[in-house]
């Protein structure tokens, strides 16, 4: 998360709200470890990454839903056991659990 602090500060200084997605657990083959983080501003800017690229798009969408009040904060799972994973294409074949929330703390 350290590497995205400057982006978060810049967005918040300009009055934007920010959501953070963090990898909290992985199973099987997964390229990023627990702690990998991505921040998304309410106008759609993105910093950091949470996977080898395969679920980033879906995570950004979920983060924007949280900021829009359309989704509760909580854990989202992408993996081979999940239909959604095939849809977004988690190519490495593992499972990744992300916690997504608004940075309101």
């Amino acid at each position, binding site marked *: 998360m350290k590497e995205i602090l400057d982006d978060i500060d810049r967005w918040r200084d300009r009055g934007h709200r920010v959501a953070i997605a963090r990898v909290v657990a992985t199973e099987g083959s997964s390229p990023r470890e627990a702690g990998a983080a991505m921040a998304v501003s309410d106008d759609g800017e993105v910093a950091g990454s949470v996977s080898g690229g395969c679920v980033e798009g879906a995570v950004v969408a979920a983060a924007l839903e949280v900021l829009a009040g359309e989704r509760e904060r909580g854990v989202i799972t992408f993996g081979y056991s999940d239909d959604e994973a095939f849809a977004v294409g988690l190519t490495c074949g593992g499972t990744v659990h992300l*916690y997504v929330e608004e940075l309101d703390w």
Partner: protein
Amino acid sequence: MSESVYEHLTSRLRLNRPIALVTVIEGPGLGAKLLVEPDGTVVGSLGQADLDRVVARDALGELAAGRSSARHYGERGEARERVVSVFVESFAPPPRMIIFGAVDFTAALAATAKLLGYTVTVCDARPVFATARRFPMADEVANEWPDKHLDRVGGDLGPRDAICVLTHDAKFDVPAITSAVRTEVGYLGAMGSRRTHERRVERLREAGLSEDDLARVMSPIGLDLGARTPEEVAIAICAEIIALRTGRVPRPLRDTEGPIHVPLQEG
């Protein structure tokens, strides 16, 4: 207005101070935060005093190992229950690499270690060789005898840190390795040909090193990649450091089976 949890967290991160951020990710108090610092300072709350106490203790352990993980508890911090799930995120300072010997392999190793996120010190007792101008990529260049240097900083080194002895001169190697085995460092490698290595082992035994001490020394240093140039040797050394940490026997993935990425095992 008092400082928010996020402001407290970022103030510590910007100073490179170790800190653990705990978030309730499932169960009662979803989203609640607790910050834990190595001196026991706690900021915020997960909403239940017993839970705070147990989680703070566990978070300190994770922080010391530089590890982030999801953990599960009962409502009051009971073990083996899954009412509350928390994510403990450790922000530990970067691992350290100390390179003894300002030789022609040193710059490439220092640069490669920087790529991997190490804070790098180059240490050589000869001021002519160990200059910041020759090693601009190093975070620190120390003109000091290896044993004196480790007397000073060795106590701070842990399982995530590495010591590489590149001097291949017994006058410096023996005090460096003798001091290095007294640290908790996770990787200790020493450069030299097989002949140099054999002679060095004799001298180290004479200096009082046990067989257990000697078994910790990766020497000759590095994986057998056929490396020749300083840059290739740097890759061979760093690849060995990674393999030792993950417990893998390095082979082409093509020739192995099973998961490519396995959960990080540290500490």
